[in-house]
């Protein structure tokens, strides 16, 4: 079964992935994803009825801790890495008019 990826699907995935693809990249992505899905479709050969999805190999539980601050104020050091900062805050392009 060959998976044909439509322009609409690639545009939709681009929105989900927050990626802006050039026309050339879109065509390549359609082909790549189609081939990968053809390959992944191999899994449908296996009957997994009644098999629980396994997200973790060990029965791990959520780890809780007391809500106590253990690190100091690192805002200054953290903001050194920011592409834009002002008054101890991250600066971003405008989000609404």
């Amino acid at each position, binding site marked *: 079964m060959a998976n044909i990826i439509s322009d609409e*699907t*690639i545009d*939709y*995935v*681009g929105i*989900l*992935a*927050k*990626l*802006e*693809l050039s026309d050339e*990249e879109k065509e*390549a*992505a359609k082909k*790549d*994803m189609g*081939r*990968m*899905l053809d*390959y*992944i*479709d*191999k*899994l*449908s*050969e*296996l009957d*997994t009825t009644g*098999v*629980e*999805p*396994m*997200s*973790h*190999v*060990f029965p*791990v539980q*959520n*780890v809780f*801790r007391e809500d106590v601050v253990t690190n100091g104020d*690192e805002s200054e*050091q*953290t903001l*050194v*890495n*920011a*592409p*834009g900062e002002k008054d101890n805050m*991250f600066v*971003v*392009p*405008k*989000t609404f008019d």
Partner: protein
Amino acid sequence: MDILSLTAVELAKAIREGKTTAVEATQAVLDKIAAGEDTYHCYVTVEREKALKQAEEVQKKIEAGELTGPLAGVPFAIKDNMCTEGTLTTCSSKILENFVPTFSAEAVLNLEKAGAVILGKTNMDEFAMGSTTETSYYGVTKNPRNPEHVPGGSSGGSAAAVAAEECFAALGSDTGGSIRQPASYCGVVGMKPTYGTVSRYGLIAYGSSLDQIGPLTKDVTDCATVLEAITSHDPKDSTSMERKNTDFTSALVADVKGMKIGIPRDYFGEGLDPEVRDAVLAAAEVLKAQGAEVEEFDLSLVDYAIPTYYTIAAAEASSNLERFDGVKYGYRAQDAEDLHTMYKRSRSQGFGPEVKRRIMLGSFVLSSGYYDAYYLKALRVKALIKKAFDEAFAKYDVILGPVAPTTAPKLGSSLSDPIKMYLGDIYTISINLAGLPGISVPCGTDSKGLPIGMQLIGDCFQEKKLIRAAYTYEQSVK
């Protein structure tokens, strides 16, 4: 004494005995880096001054009797996806070209507690996505055994640095074989521990349910010693396990009498290079001659591991890499007028093609309407794969097979066909899905002189059996 040819444990001993110093060893390895990097390019960042300063401090502590461990004074390389306080950490991506972490990964801190000197950060496939280290934004790394060939990946820089004597040992990370396969290609020892053994705190996440940090070393003794040093229970990593009996060096015993070793027939079928097959089977004979009981068996489901892996890893990657948005750190596109365009352009300009490919696939398999058919299906098959290993380990102490179907391919020959490249992960990938430990041990070379690795796989928490078998093999062929 040729300092550079010493193993990590031998070097630390020589320093303790006053035959050399941490500073002398660091200087020697920095000189070797300066001479070798034009050819091999193992590192993205070398911290010359910092390493020498750290070596001085470590040497003082050794002389004062404050540092007495088996790795005190040893210069290490760290894969560039582990955060290092004050040192550039790029993940070999443009999107982190200027990221200087404010903290260090727990595994790096554990090494520093043991007296390690950190030389710098090694090259890798961008965000650990790749099998050749060719997807790095900062250029390819070459295999020190033959510079026309790739070092493997994604921890290719770490494996190459060990092989080129540009460090005494290194840390890598392994999501689908990224420690074991480059170790095999470069002729060094590499181990992926049981999931949860080494803290992932400060490791930049790719596939969180699969990622593990582990050692790349010159021999099995170094491997066990480094693993012992970096293992810890870390409350900052919610999947970190509280393990007992982590004195892995106690398993450095040359004795496999009565050990049951299973060889999966499915690992020796079509696609396996005959020279690799012969070398791995010869290694099994060596262990048999040492008293191990070796037999073949059918593991099953081997062909389903790669599609399962790429579904799960891509899904987790698409989620993990959402954090790279040009707001808090890393690359930001300069020409965007609104926030969403800034997000999109920063990511589109900052990520390379393989990373985008996996983010797109991951976003698709997690999207409404496809989640059950692809993502949940893969998680169900993962449960079946885990069960197949459980059944195998009811019969065997250790599973033995190849690490990769071939020796290191030539530079430039892999990236054009992603699926073909993914097929090279067939023997390593299911171990990550099942959370198992695996070790790659050199077991000869092919007719071109390229190293071949054998892989030993253990049940969860059974690293000691792997170390014992690997050490016995290594001692037998010395």
